[in-house]
């Protein structure tokens, strides 16, 4: 038997169409969503079991046994591994196809059945025509329902927000969030820069993200400079609580045997916050300036600069020598003539909010320690201009300088994520908390008694069938078409 090329092409096209249709139906199914979400949950779980960001050598050193599996599936960087990314892509595909598939449904007018299975049956006293008018009035005028179908045996009324568009919108919001995640994954990068006072600094990223590195050199500096104009820390006097760790002692306090006690010590200073006045400079022009705080970063040129900490550099004079030695707080300083290095602590300077509510200026001071082998020996505290004698050498604190440590980050995905998240949250809250209610009713006469037959469907939490029935009962009783003496609603 011979086949022409045309027939083969048609057969292939039909098969491809069939495969595509099946794949589409598979990904448009909620069951598929449940399966993929289940797999994602398992992946997240794996990510919490294995220490993310750790080295394989560290893992082996700590006694990790699943070296083969860890290497094969990249379990120490699992959230960037091909397995995880593939599953995330499947979830995204499922979400997009489901959202696309349900799109027409949000515009389709509900095709209500001609008959409903009544859930409630209410006996009325009026004649059937009067009852029609009164029940309609109760639904439309009093309970504020909107008629949507009245030309059939059953009258359909509804109230609330249309749930299909809202459901569709929060799924669309999650898709936008996914796009934000993707932008972050491909383009975001970060680093650290330390600004010294009154000196210009250029940000030279040592990374440019996963995709941008294809066309941009990693160490291309920014075309602007940063200048630290001022830096200040604020402290608050915070008393320590004398409270036991022992459970029995805690229970005893609870039962009235003993009391907790706050105590104030000389060093009860807690860092309340720190601020840095930073200028963005290009040539001689100041492009932007801001006083950045811990929760208020400086944003410029697509970068966000966050205050991560500060770095003190102390300046000391040895035996009155005018040539000053400099050392960063916490680093070892080798002083000529001393065998062991000296270590200065962070300089405490700035404003302090006292316990009684008053503000005061701290007289700057730092601690001095001597590093002997692996341990540090506390020697004392020094203020500006004060000296401390160490093995016959007079070390004087001449001054200090505080630099601001900034974490910078470039992330074009964050804004997209917030937009998607906001859309998802608002529409989800409307869909879940306000919801929608549909009531279908019919008035019939059986054995000479007029009955209101009622079917109610709700979505979300804003409506409950019981409350709708109660409100209707109240209204009808008030209008005298359902006297109280009649049997209660079924």
């Amino acid at each position, binding site marked *: 038997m011979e086949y022409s090329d045309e027939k083969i092409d048609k057969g292939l096209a039909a098969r491809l169409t069939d495969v595509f249709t099946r794949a589409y139906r598979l990904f448009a199914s*909620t*069951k598929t969503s*449940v399966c993929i*979400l*289940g797999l*994602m*949950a398992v992946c*997240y*779980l794996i*990510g*919490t079991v294995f220490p*993310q960001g750790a080295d394989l050598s560290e893992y082996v050193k700590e006694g990790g046994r699943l070296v083969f599996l860890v290497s094969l599936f990249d379990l120490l960087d699992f*959230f960037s591994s091909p397995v995880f990314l593939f599953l995330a892509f499947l979830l995204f595909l499922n979400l997009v196809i489901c959202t696309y598939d349900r799109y027409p449904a949000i515009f389709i007018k509900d095709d209500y059945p001609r008959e409903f299975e009544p859930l409630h049956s209410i006996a009325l006293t009026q004649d059937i025509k009067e009852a029609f008018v009164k029940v309609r009035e109760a639904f439309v005028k009093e309970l504020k329902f909107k008629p949507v179908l009245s030309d059939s045996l059953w009258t359909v009324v509804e109230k609330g927000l249309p749930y299909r568009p809202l459901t569709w919108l929060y799924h669309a919001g999650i898709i936008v969030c996914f796009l934000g995640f993707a932008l*972050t994954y491909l383009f975001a990068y*970060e680093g650290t820069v330390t600004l010294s006072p009154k000196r210009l600094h250029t940000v030279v990223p040592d990374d440019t993200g996963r995709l941008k590195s294809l066309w941009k050199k990693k160490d291309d500096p920014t075309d602007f400079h940063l200048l630290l104009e001022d830096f200040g820390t604020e402290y*608050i006097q*915070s*008393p*320590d*609580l004398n*409270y036991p760790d022992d*459970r029995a002692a*805690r229970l005893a*306090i*609870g*039962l009235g045997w003993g*009391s*907790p*006690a*706050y105590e*104030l010590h000389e060093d009860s200073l*807690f*860092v*309340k*916050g720190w601020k840095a006045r930073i200028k963005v400079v290009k040539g001689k022009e100041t492009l932007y300036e801001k006083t950045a*705080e*811990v*929760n*208020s*970063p400086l944003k410029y040129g697509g970068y*966000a600069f*966050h205050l991560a900490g500060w770095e003190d550099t102390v300046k000391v004079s040895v035996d009155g020598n005018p040539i000053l030695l400099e050392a960063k707080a916490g680093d070892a300083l080798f002083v000529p003539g001393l065998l062991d290095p000296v270590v200065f602590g962070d300089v405490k300077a700035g404003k302090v909010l006292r*316990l*009684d*509510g008053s503000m005061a200026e701290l007289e700057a001071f730092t601690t001095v320690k001597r590093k002997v082998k692996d341990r540090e020996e506390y020697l004392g505290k020094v203020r500006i201009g004060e000296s401390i004698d160490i093995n016959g050498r007079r070390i004087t604190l001449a001054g200090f300088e505080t630099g601001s440590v900034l*974490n*910078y*980050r470039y*992330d074009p995905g*964050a804004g997209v*994520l917030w937009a998607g*998240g906001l859309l*998802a*949250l608002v529409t*989800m*809250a409307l869909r*879940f*908390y306000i919801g929608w209610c549909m009531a279908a009713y019919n008035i019939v006469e059986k054995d000479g008694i007029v009955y209101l037959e009622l079917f109610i469907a709700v979505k*979300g*939490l804003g409506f409950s069938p019981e409350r709708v029935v109660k409100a209707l009962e109240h209204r009808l009783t008030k209008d005298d078409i359902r006297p109280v003496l009649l049997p209660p609603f079924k």
Partner: protein
Amino acid sequence: MLNYEMILSRDSYLLAIELRLFWLASLIYGLALILYIFHIITRANVFGKAAATAMLVGVIAQAGLIVLRAFEAGRAPFQTLYESLSWFALCASVTYLYESRRWKNIYFPGVFVSALSMGACLYALFAGSPAIEPLSPALQSYWFEWHVILAFFSYAVFAVSASIEAAYLILSPFVKKGGATGYGVNTENIRDFHRSAFRLVLFGYPLLTFAIFSGAAWANNTWGRYWSWDPKETWSLITWTVFTIYLHSKTIPALKGWPASVFNIIGFICVMMAFPGVNWLASL
């Protein structure tokens, strides 16, 4: 103006009152738990009613101590381990009392809720520090405040939902066989447990979503990274994913019955992992 000694002595005194109130609230929840257990053993409604009343008294004591703490700290008292557990216990008890108001002579799920509330209080009292200390600069954010408030509220709502679901799973086989009499449940109203559990998840899910969103906004504002896959974040995402599965399963006829109930219980286990579980794992 008050001198330092007066301020310290006043603050110590207020803290002592607060601690006694907190112990009292946990003992009342403990009493409610015992009464619920008596109700389960004897099937006598009198124990169930007394237990529900004890829960209400516990709620009043707990609300009082939270108000006192807010006065002491001069800020919203939901930000440390000690404070957030107290908030969790209050939310769980209030949610349960609100949800159970429609039930007549049904007290069974209360045993789980009172145990959870008492457990949260004891965990706060034994493991947390009640000291009122200034917040570190990173925590001084409205995003963080809302993050904690809503996260713990949603966890409490899920805990109550799982308690009702567990009661449904335990009682429904007996109800089908004609047993479980004395607990106020029958073939009609046992289904209301399943619906109540669903409505609670429906209520808690947007709260958890906003809690995750506000946590990400806080992290982004403070450190410049909205997500860093740390175990706490990841467990909250697992919790969210499991409740997403639960909500979707309610739309699939084959899954909307007991499989959905199982997803709800798994979701609650994830809630437990997202908070005390992660802390416990980190301490190992």
